[in-house]
């Protein structure tokens, strides 16, 4: 075996090392030194993030794609970039949860960090897969610790309910997906490598069936309608920082992996019908996802539930990037996930901050927030504007690019429907703004001072979704790294 192949897996190796060091540290730390675990975890993970970030941006760019382990593991600049995005997002989640860990999660601080990193490791593998098996292993590594994280607040019944729903749907979806993968193995020449599957994928009915099973399994993870039913309950019951992680990182990683697999394994260029068949299915899924997510979001009174439905409709927008099959499609999708990461984490940062201080998550509890906590209210408003896609903010540009890429493929009706849905979404995002700025309340959330860590996180998010749209180099660089079918 050629051990130099491991050099390609730099992000995975540094993450695994961080994880193992923290695990050993947790084992041997005494009762007194337990308080240093959290700062240690933060510093180590920040170092991991910084090293990989420098590696991605500074010089050591790969030309094209490289493979390791005979095509099992694939990496390129765009893969590394997506991993870096996930790193930054996870770091932000760690910052938001610092105070919550200290107060409410004293007994399981180490587990929180270790499980988060384990899921992240699974996502890395998912992103870099060149084979259905590695994808499956990555998916399971990402979703089994996730269920534990959802149940972390084990004294609360809701948390247990959320975890039960999550683990049951995750198990069900992965069994459906495994069945699909086994059919693919049987009908595509006895190989699970994408490059072999695509050669034998001729869109026979049997293969289409296999592909639909596979798509259904992944759609559970990205929570696309009609596989979204677990989302709201799980998001509501999970600890808020875990919800933030679930709604951004888990979705973004699965969406990227989904795109790579659909393009690499199911798009035989010689047989044009293969591409047409799955884009037709996806067309309907996107329309239903965006519409259902939006309509259900309107009636939500709990902000976490509200953001769950909003994230369902956002997942629909993310899927628009798959329709074109060009480098622009991939680039706009990665850019969308990047902007969505900062925006949604900003919103969740504020929600978790307020929940820590006052224990309130209802939309009505936010009435009059502007009078007591003006800065929080303004940042929340900006995040909502960005999620809705109002022009100067990054959310507008990401929507613009992803619509443009779908329109390039000639999907005008789809883009029109998505645009119409943006207007619906504007209504419910503005409901939150209205609650904070216009509605009066006799018992508003008391003025509070948030902790430093959350403040740093919220500031980074705000800077991200305010200025990301203006730095065009980022988008151009992503496009330059992306590839099409």
């Amino acid at each position, binding site marked *: *075996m050629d051990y130099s192949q491991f050099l390609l897996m730099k992000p995975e190796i540094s993450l695994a090392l961080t994880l*193992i060091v923290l*695990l*050993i540290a*947790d*084992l041997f730390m005494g009762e007194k030194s337990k308080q240093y675990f959290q700062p240690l975890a933060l510093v180590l993970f920040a170092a991991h993030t910084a090293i990989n970030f420098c590696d991605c941006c500074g010089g050591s760019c790969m030309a094209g794609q490289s493979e390791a382990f005979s095509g099992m593991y694939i990496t390129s600049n765009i893969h590394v970039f997506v991993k870096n995005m996930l790193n930054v997002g996870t770091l932000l989640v760690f910052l938001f949860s610092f105070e919550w860990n200290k107060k409410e999660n004293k007994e399981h601080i180490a587990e929180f960090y270790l499980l988060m990193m384990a899921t992240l490791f699974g996502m890395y593998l998912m992103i870099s897969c060149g084979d259905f098996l590695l994808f499956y292993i990555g998916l399971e590594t990402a979703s089994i610790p996730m269920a534990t994280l959802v149940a972390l607040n084990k004294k609360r019944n809701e948390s247990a309910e959320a975890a039960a729903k999550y683990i049951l749907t995750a198990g069900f979806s992965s069994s459906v997906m495994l069945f699909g993968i086994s059919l693919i193995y049987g009908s595509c020449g006895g190989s699970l490598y994408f490059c072999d599957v695509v050669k034998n994928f001729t869109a026979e009915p049997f293969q289409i069936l296999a592909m639909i099973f596979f798509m259904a399994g992944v759609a559970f993870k990205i929570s696309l309608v009609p596989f979204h039913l677990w989302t709201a309950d799980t998001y509501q019951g999970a600890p808020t920082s875990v919800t933030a992680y679930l709604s951004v990182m888990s979705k973004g990683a699965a969406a990227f992996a989904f795109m790579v697999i659909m393009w690499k394994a199911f798009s035989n260029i010689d047989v044009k019908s293969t591409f047409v068949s799955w884009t037709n299915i996806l067309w309907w899924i996107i329309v239903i996802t965006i519409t259902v997510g939006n309509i259900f979001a309107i009636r939500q009174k709990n902000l976490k539930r509200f953001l769950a439905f909003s994230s369902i409709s956002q997942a629909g927008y993310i899927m628009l990037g798959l329709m074109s099959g060009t480098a622009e499609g991939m680039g706009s999708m990665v850019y969308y996930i990047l902007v969505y990461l900062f925006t949604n984490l900003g919103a969740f940062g504020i929600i978790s901050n307020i929940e820590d201080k006052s224990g309130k998550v209802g939309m009505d509890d936010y009435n009059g927030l502007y009078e007591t906590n003006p800065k929080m209210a303004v940042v929340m408003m900006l995040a909502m504007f960005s999620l809705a896609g109002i022009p100067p903010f990054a959310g507008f540009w990401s929507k613009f690019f992803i619509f443009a890429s779908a329109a390039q493929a000639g999907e005008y009706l789809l883009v029109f429907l998505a645009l119409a849905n943006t207007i619906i979404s504007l209504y419910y995002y503005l409901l939150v703004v209205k609650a904070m700025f216009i509605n009066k309340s006799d018992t508003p959330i008391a003025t509070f001072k948030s902790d430093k860590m959350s403040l740093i996180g919220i500031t980074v998010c705000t800077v991200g979704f305010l200025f990301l749209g203006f730095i065009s180099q980022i988008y151009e660089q992503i496009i330059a790294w992306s590839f099409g079918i």
Partner: protein
Amino acid sequence: MSSYEIFVIVFIMALVMVLGGSVIGLLLSPKSKNNQKGEQYESGIPTRGTSWMQFKVGYYLIAILFLMFDVEAVLLFPWAVIMKGMGVEGLYAVSFFLVVLILGLAYAWRKGALEWK
């Protein structure tokens, strides 16, 4: 005769043998009924209570730890068979695997999963 025809004949014969045997048994055998005969077999101990009851979560922990070593043994057997052929490389791979597993055990031990409370 093609192989499919042979298959069909064997299939029908198998059905006839199995079903016929049990039908003849049903018709000819003497019958006696009592409650004990209807119970599940529990190694001779009479069953009592329902299966929907709470039991100590400690059983789960022990079961999972047992499973860990069970799987470990299953994975070590094939290596043991071709140990010489794999050489030093195989030894490294297996030691890495063992170290990871032992780390897991150490974690469980340290967190008190092995204490019966």
